[in-house]
């Protein structure tokens, strides 16, 4: 399958390893991976700040750059949620509904489109999952804890991690409480953002996690920044990096 790699702007700048890992995992899953180095930002940071005009311009350019792609895959649930669910309200998605619908978060694509969890990865650590709020509630990548009823949705992240050799999943208290990143919220409301992040970090540490993983690099960078400041808790690692880890200790 032909896949266009969507590398969110902050992943490009701050976490190139995550983009490489995504590329490797997709190739390992049998995909032909295309990368367009002229791609930009999907507009999420601007949209969330209320800067609609700038967001619209970026969204339009994003759609142009990825026009015609068979599948668009990103290692970021929140960017995918923006493309899939917020472009229409910006007035740019209507003519491109098929394209936005073909935009997937990495784990979602592997499990729900390719139908695979077996990627030959090994990661001999205790790992907790930091749920991406947008992945969970807007992309439906799992069942939010507040949801009532029997229609439980499996989390692609969980399914993939369960298939990783020697990886032990640990469950933290309040499984999907927000980490407090929230884009601009992290700098406009540092006290609250820090309080929320510290609470998550403590919950992961109490659960005995050695690593915390997730589908949003932004949330992970925030949490890891708190870990380095506070000097305790599990290290952050993106889902793609765990899945790309084929050999012992390769993530170190």
């Amino acid at each position, binding site marked *: 399958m032909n896949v*266009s790699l969507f590398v969110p702007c902050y992943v490009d700048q*701050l976490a190139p390893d995550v983009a*490489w890992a995504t590329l490797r995992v997709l190739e390992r899953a049998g995909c032909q991976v295309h990368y367009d180095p002229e791609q930009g930002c999907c507009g999420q940071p601007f949209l969330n700040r209320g800067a609609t005009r700038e967001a619209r*311009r970026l969204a339009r350019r994003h759609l142009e750059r990825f026009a015609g792609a068979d599948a668009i895959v990103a290692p970021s649930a929140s960017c995918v949620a923006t493309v899939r669910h917020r472009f229409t309200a910006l007035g740019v998605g209507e003519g491109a509904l098929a394209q936005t619908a073909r935009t997937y978060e990495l784990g979602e694509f592997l499990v729900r489109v390719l139908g695979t969890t077996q990627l030959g990865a090994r990661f001999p650590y205790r790992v907790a999952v930091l749920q991406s709020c947008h992945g969970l509630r807007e992309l439906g990548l799992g069942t939010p804890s507040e949801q009532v009823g029997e229609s439980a949705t499996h989390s692609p992240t969980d399914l993939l991690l369960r298939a990783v050799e020697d990886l032990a999943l640990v469950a933290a208290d309040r499984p999907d409480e927000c980490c407090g990143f929230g884009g601009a919220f992290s700098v406009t409301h540092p006290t*609250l953002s820090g309080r929320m992040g510290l609470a998550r970090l403590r919950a992961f540490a109490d659960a005995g996690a050695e690593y915390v993983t997730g589908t949003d690099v932004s949330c992970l960078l925030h949490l890891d*920044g708190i870990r*380095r400041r506070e000097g305790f808790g599990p290290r952050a690692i993106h889902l793609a990096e765990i899945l790309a880890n084929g050999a012992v200790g390769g993530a170190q």
Partner: protein
Amino acid sequence: MTTSFDERALATLPSRGELAQHDAAVWDLRRRRDAAAAEVPDWEALRERAAALKAFALDHLDELLVGFEQRARGAGAHVHWASDATALCRIVTELLAARGARRVVKSKSMLTEECGLNPHLAARGIEVVDTDLGERIVQLAGEPPSHLIVPAIHKTRREIGALFHRQMGTPEREDDPERLTRHARSDLRRRFLAADAGITGANFAVADTGSIVIVTNEGNADLGSSLPPLHVACLGIEKVVPALADLPVFLRLLARSATGQPISAYTSVLTGPRSGGELHIVLVDNGRSELLANPTHRSALACIRCGACLNTCPVYRRAGGHAYGTVIPGPIGSVLGPALGGKQGAELPHASTLCGSCSAVCPVKIDLHGQLLAWRGERHKPAHRERLLTRAAAIALRWPALRGAARALLRPLWPLLARRSPRNPAEPWLAVRELPPLPLQSFRAQWRAKRAASGASDSGPVSKPAGRPARSERNEP
């Protein structure tokens, strides 16, 4: 760039202990809600039904209100219309003055809080006693409520004990909740019996019967509406529902969503005045018509004030209700804030991470986080510096080559940005966490270097790097 909301959160819950206690107390309500909702086999269908009923009611508000007025009058109630807070205060003051009422018992009503009725009456020498225990506590403390359902949830029992000791002469250091409640109860009972009038809110107004419905856990609204000769019920025009037969849908959702109870302790359907008494119903607009005309935000009027969005909100739990500076705190308060005025209007929609849990618990399915996002766009008035930054960033993120140039400029400054100083523009990030390390090159630059090395051209869309490049710099502390 620190907003005053963040500062108010720090002032409201300053210590680790207070923060933990508030978070735990509020989270407990969310937990109870989860358990109670899970007991209902068709919870999601019930939410759908409630949302549809509210949407219908808002679409037909004009007819339903007129129908309600006719039937309420037919049942012997007087109906008044108040266009705004001033009108409500005037109408209530006149009703009380005409009957020489000086002592008023009041049950919980967020609407009268919104309209500033208590201070208005107090300034005219009328004694107003809040009779909901939580409301009474914050009234004695001289504070506004901090939660829709649990107005004094920000107070510890020790604080309440000290407050009661000062204000009601309870024994010093008495902080047993049951004994304190008993003291408050006997104090309130005296006031109920001596009251000239009772003021209540209402949870619903029923169009096909002209009834008002009041839900409490303490029975205080029942005493307040039946002991004094005059009962004034104040409610927003959005409270009307089409039919008495619709009520069970909302009653099954309301208490479960609020506190996890299957039903509130007291649910009173009042149709007309009690025998020998007078019932005046004041229907208040105060900005609601304007909100109704707003297609994006009108559904916020469907709110039944259960407080579930507050309980699940990770920001509310760690900020405390007073940080919002509005009568209604939490996600619904931040949605209503920009519409129903208030100084914090433009700021509140940003006091959220848009995690979406609020929308997922809302019993009438208001897209709360979607509305917060919409308000951000509608009220976008950035300061000069932010506007410049936004524009520059938008251009750089559109054009990767510019981004590369910006990165080259920024790279030598990164260690300085990581250092704490009041003049450092990265300080809001550094306030609670370290800056992430900046890798030597962006993915794009690494990828292009790789391509160049393998002799492939950059223009073609297909990439198949032979392997991973040398491990990029990713410093760990």
